[in-house]
């Protein structure tokens, strides 16, 4: 007799629908449920998912935190969050009532084992009453210092796995403070959870325009052939913020721009731009290619760090019409702080595709405006037929700009002849705006990521080796900076595009920073 196996067929009613599967009923336990992230992002995202009904019936949330709330207080707080931050307003009262009936609160200290026993009992009760079938997501939305004890206690209470359903854990950034702490955190997580249960979240990857980088590169035949060192002159990645540290002095002092932006968001953008096409659009295949890029980064150590990075702090100035103080005058900031609020750096990727192509990264606070973009500047035409004297204009290199935020879109700059009898050439931009091409409202990044986690798809999350590879690169810079004197940190006036030295830094290579 031939051996037979039974294969589960997909739901035939899903054919032709945009959402190919909805998640199984589950409970999401949010540690730190009274915090800012839960208030601003998580609860509004979950409500939006309920409203647009990808969330399954019976879906429940358990808030786990120290404040003496009860279910009703938590629900009221949640309603305030949704009223203030949901992209779908006004709140639909009936949908809210239905969603709120699945919100519960458990008061406990994170170190108290009794709290986790109570949590286990509550989860079992919800399995019975709301049909959540043992499916659980634990969301760490606390300060990172509390991750280890929560993870350890979840393991001790046997909540890291169960026989009935699946268990997953979402870990918010920052994932570690440096390479050793990231490895240690990975080790601790790995002792309790298997890697396939762990979802390290970087909300940048949930943005539609970030995902579109891959679509743009790999779904269009005309770009990939020129996406390499033969045609690309250099790449600039800019993540600029016009805000300062917004009262988070204590946090930012421990972080700085390199940990807050470069190690995660910017290196993620870099990997998406530079990676090889994966063998499939599937989590491990994508992670494999991203990790290869991180491993191929030319390490910056010793004098390389000094020659290829600029770090600075914002001084007083004017931003968006308001006078703002300098970083060292902010509350919670050490007046002798060496924490950088601006970083610019030049990287090289040592592989066949990118050898010799400089990648310039810059990020900073209190810059003139909030903008995230990736600009790929192509090499100029091999022979310029139109001499400058004839053209009476300037032939600029072609630049392809992927705008991540705001005004999400793509633009291509190319030269065109100005109408007339003389040969005048001007650069023009061909623009694609998401907002004008797709009227559909874009989901918030957290909506996409939370839904993916419920569905068990980790493509848009970061894998253990990816995190460690990113830290491994950044660690060399951190080590060298630590050895440098305080005077090596430059100051820039708030409201301008960084220190003069950053301009000189790129001029040395014959380029200039884009003015986004």
């Amino acid at each position, binding site marked *: 007799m031939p051996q037979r196996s039974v294969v589960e*067929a997909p739901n035939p009613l899903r054919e032709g629908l945009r959402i190919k599967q909805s998640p199984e009923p589950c409970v999401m336990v949010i540690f730190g449920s009274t915090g800012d992230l839960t208030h601003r992002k998580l609860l509004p995202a979950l409500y939006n998912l309920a409203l647009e*009904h990808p969330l399954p019936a019976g879906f429940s949330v358990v808030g786990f935190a120290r404040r003496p709330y009860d279910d009703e207080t938590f629900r009221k707080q949640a309603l305030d969050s949704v009223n203030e931050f949901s992209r779908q307003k006004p709140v639909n009262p009936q949908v809210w009532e239905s969603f709120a009936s699945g919100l519960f609160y458990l008061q406990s200290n994170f170190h108290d084992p009794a709290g986790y026993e109570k949590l286990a009992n509550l989860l079992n009760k919800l399995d019975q009453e709301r049909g959540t079938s043992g499916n659980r997501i634990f969301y760490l939305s606390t300060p990172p210092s509390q991750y280890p004890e929560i993870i350890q206690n979840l393991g001790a209470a046997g909540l890291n796995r169960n026989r009935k359903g699946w268990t997953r854990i979402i870990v918010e950034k920052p994932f570690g403070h440096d390479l050793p702490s990231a490895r240690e955190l990975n080790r601790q997580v790995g002792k309790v959870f298997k890697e396939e249960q762990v979802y390290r979240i970087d909300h940048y990857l949930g943005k539609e325009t970030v995902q579109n980088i891959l679509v743009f590169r790999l779904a269009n035949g005309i770009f990939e052939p020129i996406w390499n060192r033969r045609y690309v002159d250099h790449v600039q990645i800019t993540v600029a913020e016009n805000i300062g540290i917004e009262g988070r002095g204590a946090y930012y002092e421990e972080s700085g721009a390199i940990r807050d932006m470069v190690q995660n968001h910017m290196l993620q953008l870099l990997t998406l731009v530079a990676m090889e096409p994966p063998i499939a659009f599937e989590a491990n295949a994508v992670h494999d290619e991203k990790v290869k890029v991180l491993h191929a980064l030319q390490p910056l150590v010793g004098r390389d760090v000094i020659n290829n990075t600029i770090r600075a702090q914002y001084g007083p100035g004017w931003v968006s019409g308001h006078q703002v103080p300098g970083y060292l005058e902010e509350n919670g900031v050490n007046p002798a702080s060496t924490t950088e609020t601006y970083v610019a750096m030049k990287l090289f990727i040592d592989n066949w595709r990118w050898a010799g192509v400089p990648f310039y990264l810059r990020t900073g606070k209190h810059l003139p405006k909030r903008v995230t973009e990736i600009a790929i500047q192509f090499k100029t035409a091999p022979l310029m037929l139109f001499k400058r004297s004839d053209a009476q204009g300037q032939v600029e290199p072609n630049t392809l700009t992927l705008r991540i935020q705001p005004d999400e879109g793509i633009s291509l700059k190319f030269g065109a002849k100005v109408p007339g009898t003389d040969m005048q050439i001007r650069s023009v931009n061909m623009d694609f705006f998401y907002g*004008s091409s797709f009227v559909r409202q874009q989901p918030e990044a957290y909506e996409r990521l939370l839904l993916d986690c419920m569905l068990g798809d980790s493509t848009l999350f970061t894998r253990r080796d990816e995190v460690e590879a990113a830290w491994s690169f950044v660690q060399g810079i951190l080590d060298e900076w630590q050895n440098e004197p305080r005077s090596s940190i430059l100051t820039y006036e708030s409201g301008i595009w960084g220190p003069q030295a950053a301009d000189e830094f790129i001029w040395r290579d014959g380029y200039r920073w884009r003015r986004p």
Partner: protein
Amino acid sequence: MTKEIAETPGVRLPWAGKVVRMEEVEETLSYFWRMSADNVRISQNMNVRTSVLNFVICAQDIPSAQRASALLRNLSSTHIARVILLILDMSAESPTDVTTWATLRSFPIISDIMRHSFEQVTILASGAATRASASLIQPLLKPDLPVYLWWLGDPPQDETLLHKLTDLSSRVIVDSNTFLTPEQSVSTLSTFLQEAPDSALSDLNWGRITPWRQLVAQFFDVPAYKPYLAGVYNIEVEHAVAPLARHLASEQGDISPNPALALLLAGWLKNSLNWKVNGSEENLHDPETGTHIWNIVRNTGPLHMDIATKETTTKLGHSGRGSIQIRPRVQSGIQPGSLCLVRLSSTVENKRATFTINREDETDNVLTSAHLPEEGGTLPQRTVNVATPQDASILLHDELEIIGRDHLYEAALHEVFEMLAE
């Protein structure tokens, strides 16, 4: 054939732009573009001129054409290159005549600084000229761009006209919510598709049932409920009718009673579940109450596939008999034709399950519930929103983004045709 405008007073359509001879349409539009460029220079606006498609709208009266023209302002982000609004005056007493208008329409996108413009040509044809509609519009189409045809109201009885226009089109769009004779027109469309199998047809009502399809499908994403899909034996669908249950046309052109949405949903389920109508006399259509009942033969599956080493066999889930019921529910305050209830009853191994989506009031919220008496009763109900864009422009916008055929819609339409034929 073009009318000598100067010699006759003709019909006045100020919203359609300037009256022109048909042979002067291109020249007039070029002039409008130059005027527009001058305005842009003066006002420092940016003019976005992206050409993606030709959009032909076929109306059978001037008020319908004017309504369609008005909603085009919401479609600018689809980057229409040219709209040809064809008004067919089919009345027997009208003389043979053609009048043409042209205009350039410009609307802000993103902000007032950036504007999108498209060309609009309106043609009023009457008498014998209506039969030459395809010839009238052919020279006006922008080259090398797809042609979308939106047919307003019921499809014409004169299939030749529709076939000729369809031959020019990449996609034909209708809205069965505005059909005066929904059952007959749905059958006409199905027949039309069978005779013109290369045509791509879509219905705005198909977009309206998408949230309901998602909710029905969602029940069976839950592993514990999935086996019950094979055991479904009864489907009930209710659609809203206005009080008095008499024929009624709203300002938007919605007709009551109109079971088109309910029929499409039932057709989709019947196709997905692989059901066949049992050609028995027990099938019922009561014109008085608007109730339809069909008895069906179930060959549900395949939900599981047994994969052998050398051969692949498909094991069907359950078989037996069942029924589909469609009935009106008098409910004021919501758009006539809207779905009010979908209920699927199932049994598997003597265990019963009922999956219900019910609109309880006039809002766009529905209550979904799964009742399994032998397996713990009723699991938590939830309220979700099924608001579908009632504004045809939003549904149209989605349709204009699709290129190619929607085979699932076509299959559902054929199922409806088969059901109505019984």
